[in-house]
């Protein structure tokens, strides 16, 4: 049992090594078996660990070796498996395994099949390291590692220049966030002398609330979270990241990696609870991101873009919950979101696969009959994310709304509006893709087929999870039956600042009714707009109302960043290279050289060879020296 986390961690690495080194000569079947079985094995081990964790509160600790030791800096490479880790492990290996299986079908015809599985396994390895780490610095290894894998998989189809640009953008924006993380690490070293969770949390509890150092540490960590979890202002990489194959979007850019920021905040809950200022910032950034991304998702025509903005928006929900000190709620939504968003992405992938890489929803329509399984599971996913009872999103989103209402009424209202928008864009997606007339080109229409069994099964399992996942956290209304909260209790019990809020049952019921009303309203609105009226295959954007154009063009944020940051940096580089260096710096250097030369030439003029001239100089200098000596005293 002690060594299980280590084995769990290294199984996917083994898969990466085999598939990576064997790339080019391993047969597809072998690759698929290795890729899936390593993650499956990890899942099995996770289940064993989970069963073990039910019997004891004590986390498993494993010290591997001293990693870095220099001066005051001492980092041990250690693993920690507690219940919080286990929740993440279950998501990563569980959803990860399903997505691996799905990928076998999805990527079968791709020339880079082996490479794909190697990268996917490597990703799982780093993601596991991220959650198994027992210190922030070791977590940072996984943190940057998953960023690398994300880069590799976004640019998986590397012949396309746009895709690789998206990959670069993702890596660079993540690195900006990572700088914040890194600075937080240094500040922890300076303040606590360590980045190990136990040490940091123990020493931090001696600080008063809102101590400037703690605020700085938590803010910097949150900068890291902003980058990785695509929050304002570093969210623009995630929609572009949809360039990667769809299973990648499901695994990395929906279910696991992008939630690492949320995990980071929850993991550091002791610090955050001591920094109310940071919590307020998190609450507002989360709320703003949720609303902002939902507004953009309303008008996108690319099916994956809608889901990407939806992910950004849902991550905003998780942060809003964390910002309201409701860490369990945050984790709850992380889990349910992993279920239904992975489902939605895989469903979208199934549609894209069936239509031979068509992603524009305006070219879809009427696929309900052609893709019945995909349709059915997508309906479950849509209802789950919209918050229709009793599906997963209903419980987790309500819990967030409830928690946020304690902190700020405005944030609560904004998130309620966002909930409406969420339902709207999701039903819009559903209607555009599956209802109405089929708008695909006629010659393609005959080729549309339902996904193979290997792709269907993961969809069905995820649909089931999305349907029942909410029962992990039943509201207090039904008695004290919040399973997740009970399971995570030992993690948060050490934090004296986390007092569970009691809500009036009437208020809980009100929020539930509100949720349901919003879903129904959204369904009705989209039904009228996208079902009763025919859908145009192309819309004239300039003719649309202003709000539509702004939403469609994503509020021009990319353009803003380009003109504020990218272009000035490029201009500066050009200026330095073309003007400053040759005309200023080098001019001074060469000028000095030329001056020395000129001086030399002038002095050679003195060297005439005429003895008379030399004598004259000698006499002259002698007189000058004497003069000086005489008059000095």
């Amino acid at each position, binding site marked *: 049992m002690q060594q299980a986390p280590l084995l769990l961690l290294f199984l996917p690495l083994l898969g990466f090594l085999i598939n990576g080194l064997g790339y*080019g000569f391993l047969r597809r079947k072998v690759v698929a078996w290795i890729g899936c079985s390593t993650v499956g094995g990890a899942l099995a081990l996770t289940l064993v660990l989970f069963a073990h964790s039910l019997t004891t509160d004590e986390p498993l600790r494993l010290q591997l070796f001293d*990693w870095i030791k220099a001066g005051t*800096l001492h980092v041990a490479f250690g693993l920690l498996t507690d219940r919080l880790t286990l929740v993440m492990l279950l998501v990563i290996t569980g959803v990860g395994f399903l997505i691996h299986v799905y990928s076998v079908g999805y990527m079968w015809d791709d020339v880079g099949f082996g490479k794909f599985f190697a990268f996917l396994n490597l990703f799982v390895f780093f993601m596991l390291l991220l959650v198994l780490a027992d210190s922030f610095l070791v977590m940072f290894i996984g943190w940057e590692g998953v960023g690398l894998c994300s880069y590799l998989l976004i640019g998986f189809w*590397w012949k396309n*220049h746009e895709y690789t640009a998206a990959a670069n953008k993702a890596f660079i924006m993540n690195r900006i966030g990572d700088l914040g993380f890194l*600075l937080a690490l240094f500040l922890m070293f300076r303040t606590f002398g360590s980045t190990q969770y136990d040490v940091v949390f123990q020493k931090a509890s001696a600080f008063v609330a809102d101590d400037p150092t703690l605020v700085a540490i938590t803010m910097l960590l949150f900068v890291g979270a902003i980058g990785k979890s695509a929050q304002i202002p570093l969210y623009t990489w995630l929609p572009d990241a949809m360039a990667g194959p769809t299973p990648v979007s499901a695994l990395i850019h929906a279910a696991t990696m992008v939630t690492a920021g949320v995990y980071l905040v929850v993991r550091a809950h002791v610090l955050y609870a001591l920094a109310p200022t940071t919590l307020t910032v998190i609450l507002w950034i989360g709320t703003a991101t949720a609303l902002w991304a939902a507004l953009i998702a309303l008008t996108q025509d690319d099916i994956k873009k809608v889901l990407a903005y939806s992910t950004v928006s849902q991550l905003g929900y998780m942060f809003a919950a964390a910002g309201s000190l409701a860490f369990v709620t945050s984790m709850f939504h992380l889990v349910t979101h992993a279920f239904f968003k992975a489902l939605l992405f895989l469903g979208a992938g199934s549609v894209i696969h069936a239509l031979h890489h068509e992603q524009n929803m305006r070219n879809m329509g009427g696929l309900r009959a052609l893709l019945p399984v995909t349709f059915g599971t997508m309906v479950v996913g849509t209802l789950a994310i919209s918050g229709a009872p009793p599906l997963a999103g209903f419980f987790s989103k309500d819990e967030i709304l409830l928690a946020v209402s304690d902190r700020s009424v405005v944030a609560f209202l904004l998130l309620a509006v966002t909930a409406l928008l969420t339902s709207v864009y999701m039903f819009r997606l559903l209607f555009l893709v599956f209802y109405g007339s089929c708008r695909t080109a006629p010659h393609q229409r005959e080729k549309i087929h339902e996904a193979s069994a290997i792709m269907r099964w993961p969809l069905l399992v995820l649909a089931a999870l999305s349907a029942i996942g909410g029962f992990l956290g039943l509201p207090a209304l039904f008695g004290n039956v919040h399973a997740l909260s009970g399971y995570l209790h030992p993690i948060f019990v050490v934090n004296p600042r986390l007092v569970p809020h009691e809500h009036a049952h009437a208020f809980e019921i009100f929020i539930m009714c509100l949720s349901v009303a919003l879903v129904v309203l959204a369904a009705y609105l989209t039904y009228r707009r996208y079902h009763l009226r025919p859908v145009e295959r192309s819309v004239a954007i300039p003719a649309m109302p202003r709000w539509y154009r702004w939403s469609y063009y994503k509020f021009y944020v990319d353009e803003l960043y380009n003109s504020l940051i990218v272009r000035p940096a490029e201009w500066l580089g050009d200026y330095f*290279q073309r003007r400053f260096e040759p005309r200023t710096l080098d001019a001074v250097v060469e000028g000095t050289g030329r001056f020395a030369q000129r001086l030399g030439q002038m002095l050679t003029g003195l060297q005439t060879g005429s003895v008379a001239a030399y004598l004259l100089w000698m006499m002259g200098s002698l007189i000058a020296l004497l003069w000086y000596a005489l008059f000095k005293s």
Partner: protein
Amino acid sequence: MLSFIILLPLIAALMVLVVPQGYCRRVSWVSAWMALALVVAGAPGLAEVLGLTWRAELAWMDALGVRIRLDNDGLSYLLVLLTALLYPLSLWAVPASSVRKPRLYDALLLFTQAPLFGVFLARDALIFYIFYELALIPIFFLVAFWGTDPSRRITMKFFIYTLAGSLFLFVAILYLYLQTPQPHSFAFDTLYALPLTAEQQALLFAALFFAFAVKIPIFPFHTWQPDTYTAAPLGGSILLAGIMLKMGIYGLMRLAVPVIPSALEHWGWLAMVLCIAGTLYGSLVALRQTDLKRLVAYSSLAHVGLIAAGVLTANSSGWQGAALQMFNHGIIVFALFFSVDLLERRYGTRQLNQLGGVAAHMRHFSWMFALVLLASVGLPLTNGFVGEVLLLNGLFQYHTTAAVFAGLAVVLSVAYMLRWYRLVFFGAAHQEPKTDVRPAEAVALSVCLVLILVIGIYPLPWLQMTEQVTSQLLSIMHHPTAVKP
């Protein structure tokens, strides 16, 4: 007696000049390998077991207090090891058949190795200076005769500029010598114990910093560097960027910082500003380069600026980071120059806009280069990360702002390296298919990759190597009077 390793390449160089043409390269090979073997045998721990010692002291000009004092410690060893390691690699990277006048080329290459060993092993300022200057001469000829076309003018500038820098070093050393009590001595230990006034220190710091800043180079004294690195032949670029510039950083650590603590306290910030401005400057310019070799040159400018900044922090994290990163930078810059050369030999160009889709033809090269790239941008589990994180932590302890700006340069490094990878390796292939990396080339790259990963995953032995010496030198700096050899 291991210090006589300095003589080995000299003897070999002379042999190269006289043996029949066909044997030149063999002699070079044997010498480079023997040097490496000796250095490995002299590793801390191993040397004691084998009964080998590095310490040597020979009378030379006793009347003047000049003795040939040589010794080794973790810091010296790391750089000696780097030198010994890069020699077989750079011989391997440039086959004798591919250079004009291979006899002379090899002889010059070997001639450079001796003073490089000497600089890192010297424990006497004058000896240090002599080796420091001696290393310049063969490299001057290497760049001038084997470089690409406009190299004469460029090399002249490089030579005069660095020579001018060295002049300041010489004056500073002489001045320090005259301050020592009778009988005067150049020994480092004597210099460390000198009680110097704040004014003296300030002037000395200015002279020493300028001298080393030209060599490293640090912005704004770098204008010789991009041209020289670009014009130099592969072997020359590797020596210049891989080892020679470390003489400057090493000089800062060994000769400047421990001698002038108060000046560092008062004026160190100015030098620090230059270093960090240089890392940002180098990164921004690298972002816009179209010539790969120039890109490497500017990225190197950015990286060494960070290392020098780490030295100026005068704390253990910064120093251990600097020591390790010097080694790392040597390995990485070799791999980068080698890769550029490999691309240029295949495609006949090293212009970004003329390359593209290399991944389609050169699969193995693509992933190998990707790993080098990751080390260069300091991704965890590569050696670059360990060095960078220690350097930045040192800077953070020194001043938060310094770490923030240096950190921005690290972000920029991703931008320019990924731009390179994207434009060269990704996209549609512009050119005819080319053969993938050949076994011989793969060997050279693999050595780098192994080191990158080994140091990145388990850096502890490497850090322990320099632990003692950095704390020793730093304690000299912090308690200048309480020094004893």
